[in-house]
């Protein structure tokens, strides 16, 4: 599903933030990505979502070489990924419903279908009943869960979650992780960046560890 081959990435001002990274995720595999603050986890996610391009190496996603796709193709690539961002990235002037519905509206789903799917996704993250509220009037953890609902609403073949439980209490964190496990069980590839080592260690999945941009354990 996803393959990194000797990938390096450089920000002009700070130098290489990812160095010579190689790994492979099989379809339906679930894995964690850890590392200290500033290790390069979010940068790796940006490469996969083509928000940045790598300076060396090759990234292949679903059979497509991400180095070689054109700007016009990027939207269609992104539609097959569910992205959960560290800073949520919600639209502040749209309701929870509209936020979660956005990927479906963009993909051109009909109204009834959108409504059904959004409700199902919100139910999964425990926010049913908050559809009409605006992100500003939600607690930090609730906003984070809206972001999760948006990522899973169009059932993408791959989910990339950047620190999805940073603002959730331990109980809820466990539930969300369980949600990801459910997706994995129906064949979705899941990659989760997280600091919550106690939680990760309790779950028995592969852990990729970054240290100053290098993959030190896999």
């Amino acid at each position, binding site marked *: 599903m996803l393959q990194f081959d000797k990938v390096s990435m450089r920000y002009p001002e700070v130098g290489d933030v990812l160095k010579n990274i190689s790994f492979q995720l099989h379809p339906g595999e679930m894995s964690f990505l850890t590392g200290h603050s500033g290790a390069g986890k979010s940068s790796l996610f*940006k490469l996969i*979502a083509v*928000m*940045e391009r790598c300076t060396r190496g090759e990234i292949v996603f*679903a*059979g*497509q*070489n991400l180095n*070689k*796709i054109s700007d*016009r*193709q990027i*939207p*269609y*690539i*992104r*539609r*097959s990924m569910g*992205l959960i*961002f560290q800073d949520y*990235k*919600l*639209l*502040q*002037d749209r309701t929870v419903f509209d936020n979660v519905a*956005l*990927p479906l*509206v*963009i*993909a*051109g*789903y*009909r*109204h009834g*279908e959108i409504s059904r799917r959004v409700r199902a996704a919100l139910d999964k993250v425990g926010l049913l009943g908050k559809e009409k509220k605006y992100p500003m009037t939600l607690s930090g953890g609730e906003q984070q869960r809206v972001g999760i609902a*948006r990522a899973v609403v169009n059932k993408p073949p791959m989910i990339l979650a950047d620190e999805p439980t940073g603002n959730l209490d331990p109980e809820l964190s466990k539930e969300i992780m369980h949600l990801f496990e459910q997706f994995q069980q129906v064949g979705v590839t899941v990659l989760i960046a997280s600091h919550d080592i106690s939680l990760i260690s309790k779950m028995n999945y592969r852990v990729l560890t970054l240290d100053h941009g290098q993959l030190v354990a896999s």
Partner: protein
Amino acid sequence: MRKRPRHQQKQEGRQTRISGGGFIDRLKAYRDLHAHALFSSLGRLISSRFASVMTIVVLAIGISLASGFYILVKNLQQLAGNLESSNQISLFLKDDVSDINAKKFSENLKKNPDVQEVKFISKEQALKEFETYSGFGSAVKALEKNPLPIVVQVIPKNSFDDEAVTQNLFEHFKLVPEVDLAQMDMQWVKRLQSIVEVARRGVQLLSGLLGIGVLFITANTIRLELHNRREEVVIAKLVGATNGFIQRPFLYSGFWLGFFSGVAAWFIVTFTALVLKQPIEKLSGLYDGSFHVVFLDFFETFAMLSISALLGMVGSWIVVHFQLRQLKPE
């Protein structure tokens, strides 16, 4: 070898685009998207009422100035049309031509295809007119005998080449035996040309300035709105929106802004014209009263609204097109 994977990518891209259902369903969904963008952009304008009204007022001022100038030109042209009658030839007949012969002569002139109008002025009429317009009126009353000749005023036909026709006629009249002296009111023509020249240049310059102004204001407003909504644009891009999808609501916003500004401008222009109508026609009454203020007719009103809406869309397209390329998620 390299071409192949690219092709496959494209197909896959298209497949993800097709979200269940057949062609008809996709078409319906597409229509839904457009209708949604059209009305949601209107709703957005209404919900931010204060902001929209300010923008519309600013645009309306620009548009109403531009169409105000258009009306000015239109009225000037009408005025110039009136003044063209000054482009005339006066024939002073010989003293020995009798009144009856003079009348006959002027009747004959009317048959000339180059002549539009002929005005016969008897000695008595000439004296009266002279009294009224010359400023020496009372002095004339002291005269023992009417010294003025019979005058026949000839207005040449309007044609594509006015000056040449007038000149030809003039040369012809010089040789007519009844005519003592033919005189062209050339000074009027020259003055008219100068006035038209000045008006034309001024209006051109100002209209250019205002056209640029309206485009700039629309573009600037949309640019600022885009800047305000760059978060939204970035997020939409991140969840897979194409540039087309993102552009649409902005283009419709531009359309609505332009359209409503056009409507507001129509009110401003009409109000201004109504206020100015009375003193202008009073002034015109002091001359010969043939001048009436003209407004925008139905077709021109329609054109104004269309052009405003179009300018709004063009302005927003320019900005969206150039800025969207720059707005990358990072």
